[in-house]
């Protein structure tokens, strides 16, 4: 069992949630409540990471954040080293790969709030911010939690993007899923088995939690 890899995986999962959740709340709510030109295209674009092969996604990220690209140079200026083959780079890649897992559940959560309920909040004298924190977020809460859990689980399991962008540096970019592959290549079936079982348990726990939460959403709607 590669505990360093487990730690990298957990940190990556937590970091991805931390980065994506505020963004997902903003964008998911926007998509749920506002009609604007190009909404369809934006929704499709946000879903791309879901259907694009992770290696293809990794390729584009490498091109976009490569040392010669403006974005890559900006990243280097801020962080101090280049994006590929670093934990920070992995975090950025993971955040982008997970956008659909965050935005879609949050969007559905906000869409489920009847517009009359939001209007009633305004007529009760709640400011837009109070309406958001006291009415909308509590009502969309199960969806928000689902988004966070799905992102976490998906990050743990991500393989292609990580391998393309991060490589296999112990303590930096070697996640649990990479470590399994690594161990199998070295004919260490036992270690690979333990780590695979760990991921399986985590995946099961995640899915059970999200299913339970989505049932609760159903009950709550009046």
């Amino acid at each position, binding site marked *: 069992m590669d505990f360093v890899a487990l730690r990298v995986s957990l940190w990556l999962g937590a970091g991805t949630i931390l980065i994506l959740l505020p963004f997902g709340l903003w964008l998911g709510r926007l998509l749920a409540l506002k009609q604007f030109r190009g909404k369809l295209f934006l929704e499709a674009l946000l879903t791309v990471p879901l259907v694009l092969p992770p290696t293809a996604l990794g390729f584009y990220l490498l091109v976009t954040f490569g040392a010669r690209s403006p974005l890559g140079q900006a990243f280097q200026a801020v962080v101090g080293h280049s994006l590929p083959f670093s934990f920070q780079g992995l975090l950025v890649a993971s955040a982008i790969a997970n956008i659909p897992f965050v935005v879609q559940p949050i969007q559905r959560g906000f869409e489920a709030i009847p517009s009359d309920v939001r*209007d*009633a909040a*305004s*007529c009760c004298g709640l*400011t837009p911010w109070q309406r958001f924190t006291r009415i909308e977020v509590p*009502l969309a809460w199960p969806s928000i939690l689902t988004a966070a859990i799905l992102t976490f689980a998906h990050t743990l399991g991500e393989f292609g993007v990580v391998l393309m962008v991060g490589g296999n540096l112990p303590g930096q970019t070697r996640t649990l899923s990479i470590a399994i592959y690594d161990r199998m290549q070295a004919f260490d079936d036992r270690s690979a088995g333990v780590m695979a079982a760990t991921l399986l348990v985590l995946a099961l726990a995640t899915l059970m939690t999200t299913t339970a939460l989505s049932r609760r959403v159903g009950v709550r709607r*009046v």
Partner: protein
Amino acid sequence: MCGVSEPRLSVGLRQAGPIPLDVEFGCDAGQVLAIFGPSGSGKTTILRSIAGLYRPDHATVRSNGVAWTDTASGTFVPPHQRAVGFVFQEYALFPHLTAEGNVTAALGHLPHADRRSRADQLLRSVRLHEKANRRPQELSGGERQRVALARALAREPAVLLLDEPFAAVDRHVRRGLQDEVNALRRTLDLPMILVTHDFDDVVRLATHVLLLERGRAVACGPMTTLMSRPDLAWLREAVGLGAVFEATVRGSTNHGLMLLGFDAGTLLAADRRLPTGTTVRVRIPAREVILATHRPEGLSLHNVLVGRVSAVHRDPGIDPVIVQVEVGRLLLLAEVTQDAIDRLRLAPGTPVHALVKSVSIDVVTTDSGLGARDSVTTT
């Protein structure tokens, strides 16, 4: 156009589409203006525009002399800064909060320490204090409605807006809620606007009526005046014409009838066992009134009112003619055939007797003892 010169609330809305609007009206404290019209005529949009939830192309909304919306000068006060009590059609309660939480949400203007007791007081006024900890899904339709009412009043609104407030409850719950709203009208010093497509609500609650058709005000005015107009073809088609006026219960006869006193005399109606002195609203459908040029004798009916024809109105393509009869200060409407007009030579000024069966008189109680005990008071 409608009502007083400097009303508490004045509204003017105009736009060509997507929802056409062309209305201008005022509503004063203590008045209930019913906006009556078919679904899709823009009733709810008018309420939403007053609350600032909808912004028509051209709009003025003034409350207590303060401009809430004025598209000409670019004034727009956002909804949460308008003192509006809004009861939504499906109540729109916050499903994750208890009845008390729903009411407290609208008490943001009070210091934290006072909110709880005020919420309790408001729930008590709608007789729901014992269910303060229930969530909306644990309450019946009528109870949800009362929470919605308490929440709308919590804000100490300058105007109360009711959007089809009885549409989602069954008949007997409806009566109780109508009484509740009637009690509010007497105790609250604020304009109330009631949107409805049910004429029963209008007869029971309204002091003023605005008839709306495709966003346009067909007619607007005090209830009694409006209901005495013979020329409202649209109203005639929708619910039938009929004069509405107030009367006082003078007592019961031994024969299952009660005596009602009004401006120009008395009427006998089916006994409703109401205490003497009760003020009731009376509606006499035009279709139920028979006209005679001489006092007829040997009749089974009691009510023969003496007056004179004040107007004769014909709607193109419809045979029955609407005759307006002046009985004292009261204007009755009668629906008679063109043949009868010709035979009796009815024309403005002709003296007539209006005959009404006692069972044809709709009696609506407007104060049913809910009064002081259950009324909501503002602090």
